[in-house]
């Protein structure tokens, strides 16, 4: 582990008074390696190392800590800072309905997460409407309907005419209108996966957002995402505007450095974690747990 590596690096420094550029250089090398191997974007790593170096240099080595522990402490605090301290989860609007729009790359877990959110809020006594807004992927509407059926949650699907037109804006508008008229507390829009570099499809999301004015726009991202997390997340943030992030497939063994990259470039809170394929596999984000997993 990183802490153990630090112990070895700093064994020889016991008793020296101050952390110097020299003695923390080796430790910072290990931090860089650990973060890169954890899939944190290399530009984010560079900035992170710089901030840790500035904070650590000149620090008095406290009597109670070894120099190794001290550097770990700085790294840890800096990571916690980056992960954010906002409360995780989703607050529903005081005046219903709350409209939540799910966006992200293909296969990230949006449709499944819609089901999970539905289950989560239904358990709190809320009335939830899921809107099948992906007219492109084969059987996408069937997938959401099947989840809704299992959870006994209503699913709004496009009528024949809308489906034929595949007008996502109209489908979302109709879904939100119905949700509003029929007194739902939460309306979740399941959009189709798309590339952040697809101008037409990103434009479609901008149009949906303008038309239905959601309270939340959540980026659904795969925890195993590599260096591309920065490009992807910054494009979704810049072009669409996000209010939060859901990280999926977290229960695997990916170190999850993508979460740090996504936090760094969007500045938005991680609201939930997907921790399994079943619909009860949804957790609130835990910054400490995530940080220790990234450090490895």
């Amino acid at each position, binding site marked *: 582990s990183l802490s153990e590596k630090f112990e070895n690096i700093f064994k020889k420094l016991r008793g020296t008074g101050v952390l110097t550029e020299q003695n923390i250089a080796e430790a910072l090398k290990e931090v860089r*390696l650990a973060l*890169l*191997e*954890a*899939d944190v*974007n*290399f530009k984010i790593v560079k900035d992170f190392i710089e901030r840790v170096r500035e904070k650590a240099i000149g620090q008095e080595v406290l009597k109670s800590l070894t120099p190794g522990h001290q550097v770990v402490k700085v790294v840890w605090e800096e990571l916690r800072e980056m992960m954010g301290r906002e409360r995780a989860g989703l607050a529903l609007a005081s005046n219903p309905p709350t409209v939540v729009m799910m966006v992200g*790359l*293909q*296969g*990230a*877990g949006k449709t499944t997460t819609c*089901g999970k959110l539905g289950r989560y809020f239904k358990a709190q006594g809320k009335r939830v409407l899921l809107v099948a807004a992906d007219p*492109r*992927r*084969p*059987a*996408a509407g*069937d*997938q959401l*309907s*099947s*989840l809704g059926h*299992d959870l006994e949650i209503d699913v709004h699907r496009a009528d024949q005419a809308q489906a034929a037109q595949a007008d996502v804006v109209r489908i979302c508008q109709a879904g939100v209108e119905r949700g509003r008229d029929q007194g739902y507390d939460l309306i979740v829009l399941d959009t189709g996966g798309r*590339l*952040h*570099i697809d101008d037409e499809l990103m434009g479609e999301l901008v149009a949906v957002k303008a038309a239905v004015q959601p309270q939340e726009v959540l980026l659904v991202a*795969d925890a*195993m*995402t*590599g*260096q*591309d997390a920065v*490009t*992807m997340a910054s494009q979704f943030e810049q072009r669409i505007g996000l209010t939060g992030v859901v990280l999926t*497939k977290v*229960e*695997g*063994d*990916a*170190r999850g*450095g*993508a979460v740090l990259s996504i936090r760094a470039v969007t500045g938005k809170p991680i609201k939930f974690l997907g921790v399994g*394929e079943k619909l009860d596999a949804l957790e609130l984000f835990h910054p400490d747990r995530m940080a220790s997993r990234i450090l490895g």
Partner: protein
Amino acid sequence: RLRGRAADPAVLEEFESALIASDLGVRVVDRVMERLKKQLQGADGSQTGLVHRVLRDTLIEVLTPAQGLPLESLLANGPKPFVILVVGVNGVGKTTTIAKIAQRLVQAGKVPLLVAADTFRAAAIDQLQVWADRVGVGVIRHRHGADPAAVAFDGVAAAKARKVDVVLIDTAGRLHTKSNLMDELRKITRVIAGECPGAPHEALLVLDATVGQNALAQARQFHQAVGVTGLVLTKLDGTARGGIVVAIAEELKLPVRLIGVGESVEDLQDFDSTAFVDALIG
């Protein structure tokens, strides 16, 4: 005797960053950069064009195990029915890739049969059915929740009876860390082999180009479970480069058969290591 000129560290750093950004992984990149510096000894490293050329050659050479036979030659020299098992973690593009391969086979005058062995995920069978109808091929399917090994067995049996050329078996996405699901995959493989000795003739692991270092763990575990014989790298139409295949090529020597470059049924290409390397370093 001619003495080499050192390469500009800024140029080396730029190449190094490009490789890190492409998910090659820091350890692989360090090794590649060491090989590059060795190759540049005695040469004029101040010429950026030369450095680029040597790096390109180095990467192409490292990727040699990844450049294997194309799928068509496997089929041409393989038994009939040629059984392909498609595996991988959740959401990587297995089902869509099967549709693409089926389309390619139909266009080549072959008869594929699809097997809907993902009996777990919502509407997985429906999704494969839609693709089958579009491409014009048959599907062997049971009800949602059925035993996937039973579906795989029926699929292979039907393929033999109908004398089809290729069987494409779609399985549920699963994380390689879930031992019960990996055991299920082992069982599916055993059952297929029981019905058709030698099958699966190709075990394709589908990898998402957006995934980082975890793809190496995926490759190791799936290889251990079913004996992967080929890789498919999907979503290369995005900005991710899938550089992790370099580490997989070095460690597991697995060929990349195909790449996915979009969501339409024709968005499938053969893997070309030269084109792949050019995408990495421009």
